[in-house]
């Protein structure tokens, strides 16, 4: 374990009579208390509910888990959840990497505009944006009305209630989480490296592939992980834009909690989703130094 360092750790001397921990660190008590009260405690309560709250009396503490895994629909939807999350991560990466690259090579003023463009979606609520996609994609929506009126098609083309609809809605919301970590890492790459590669005879693409791309990978991995984990918890977007085949586990949790008041099975599904998300993080941490990847955000 790392030792807590004195304030002027950089100089290698302990500050005279100084506290072991920076006094400013005390400011963290409030947020920590907040997280404890409003995140940790509920988390524990939910976890406990999954092994204590049963629809029918039972002696088996894991009865809810048994119930969950006994249903083919649950497993299918769990699979859907990971599939949709994977798909949206791929879409975000395909869009986000070139975008971040562009931001990195243009003049700072243009880069600023590009940054604003990618952050724009943050300025309106997720729900509003999702309904906006409905207006655009539905059978009587903007695209289909245009296509029908201009006689390009006779029947509305299926846009809403498709996986395509879900991808559009989710990638728009998730794109910033891909672009920002990648951009932050790219900014730290010394442009001289690529120039040096060119000087030594590398064609532009080789210089990119052998020098720039490997150096930007920490950002890619960070963005990928962040987007994937966020996508796992999506709920309203697939519900409004997707087909039943795009149903995600969060929708089942909502239905159990709100409609059937079966909080035991709802908690169980939440714990399973959390456990699997955690597993993804643990596995990822074997390959990525998460601290570096996310620490880099602070510099941007």
């Amino acid at each position: 374990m790392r030792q807590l360092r004195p304030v002027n750790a950089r100089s290698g001397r302990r500050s005279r009579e100084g506290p072991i921990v920076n006094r400013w660190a005390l400011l963290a008590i409030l947020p920590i208390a907040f997280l404890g009260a409003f995140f940790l405690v509920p988390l524990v309560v939910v976890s406990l509910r999954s092994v204590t709250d049963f629809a029918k009396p039972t002696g088996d503490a894991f009865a809810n888990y048994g119930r969950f895994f006994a249903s083919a629909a649950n497993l299918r939807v769990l699979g859907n959840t990971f599939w949709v999350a994977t798909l949206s991560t791929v879409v975000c990466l395909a869009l986000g990497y070139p975008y971040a690259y562009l931001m990195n090579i243009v003049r700072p003023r243009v880069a600023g505009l590009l940054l604003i463009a990618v952050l724009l979606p943050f300025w309106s609520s997720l729900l509003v944006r999702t309904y906006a996609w409905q207006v655009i994609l539905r059978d009587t929506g903007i695209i289909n009305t245009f296509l029908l009126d201009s006689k390009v098609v006779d029947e509305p083309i299926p846009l809403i209630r498709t996986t395509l609809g879900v991808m559009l809605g989710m990638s728009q919301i998730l794109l910033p989480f891909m672009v920002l970590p990648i951009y932050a890492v790219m900014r730290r790459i010394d442009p001289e490296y690529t120039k040096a590669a060119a000087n030594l005879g590398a064609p532009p693409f080789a210089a990119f592939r052998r020098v720039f791309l490997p150096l930007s990978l920490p950002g890619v991995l960070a963005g990928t992980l962040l987007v994937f984990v966020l996508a796992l918890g999506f709920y309203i977007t697939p519900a409004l834009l997707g087909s039943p085949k795009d149903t995600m586990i969060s929708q089942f949790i909502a239905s159990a909690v709100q409609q059937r008041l079966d909080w035991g099975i709802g908690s169980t599904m939440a714990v399973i989703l959390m456990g699997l998300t955690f597993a993804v993080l643990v596995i990822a941490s074997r390959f990525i130094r998460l601290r570096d990847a996310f620490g880099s955000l602070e510099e941007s």
Partner: protein
Amino acid sequence: MTSWRRLSPLIAAGVSLVAACGGGASLSPTVGPPESTAPESAAPTMAPMADICTNPPKAAGTTLTFASYGGAYQEAQRKGWLEPYAALTGVTFQESEDSSNATIKAQVEAGQVTWDIVDVGNDFGLDAQADILEPIDYTMVPKDEILDGFAGTYRVADITYGVVLGYNTEKTAGQVPEGWADFFDTTKFPGKRGFWDYSAGGIFEFALLADGVAPKDLYPLDLPRATTKLDTIKNDIVFWGSGAESQDLLGKGEVAMAMIWNGRAYSAKNIDKKPVAIQWNQQIVTADYFVVPKGTPNKDAAMAFIGWASCKENNAAPSKYIPYGPTNKLATADPSKVAELSVSNINDTTAYFDDTWVVENAQLLEDAYQEWKTR
């Protein structure tokens, strides 16, 4: 250990973001059906009953919190009941427009009951919720006058409505679907079909009615038969999550026909001015119910209000503003809406939910539904 430490910054970031993304619109709840619980013996008729109807107890200084489903619906309840009652008794009403079974449960479990009177759907207020609801005080509520099966131990129906077959007359090109068999016939009536995305909302019942099951033989539901029938139009089904959505889909003609609450079909036709009509055959007549969360400090005042609103003089008042109600057999609905009411259109094809069966088998229904839907 190290890997956990390395995870921590990500977890912190993830947690806050997941929290930000997690919020969703709650699906709009229901309204519902008659209770199949054994009828209880008539409440002793007490002198105060007549008093409550015309001269409810004065209670200036009392604040009652009334939770319902918002929109035109709650507005009708406000104008029909809350405002006159406040004027009569001096009670002050606070309103909440997000009635939810889960909120009632959460308030009671936390010992922080802030809702006094809640309008809930037909899937709530049965014996399964005995722990979280106050029994209705039938010394103040005229149980004998309430429609048979609509007054239970923990709930009394305040508004009746129908789950009906609504159709877009432009999409059906002047043909009239006669019932749910036509709903399932996409050759005769091309176009998409709207169903509420809820296992206990009526989708199985309507599939069975379409397949020829008599209304009285619906329960216990034959789920394999229902899902087989639903499979025949599965690719044409559009699932809706809220009443507003059903009204919109049917009004715009995105679906040719929809399972819809009769008030929403009425609004599509009369407020949105869309070509929408109702086929009353094989409707399911059901109700919304008043319940009182257990532990409210205003229990008696809440019961007095429920008693007053259930009286024949007052029970039909919201029907002036919305085609819902009444539940009191002796109440007279507003003449402007009487033809549009579910209870005015009861015939020998009319069906009712068996709420007790549905609630007891909620998990079975949900599993069968999701298994079919996500297949």
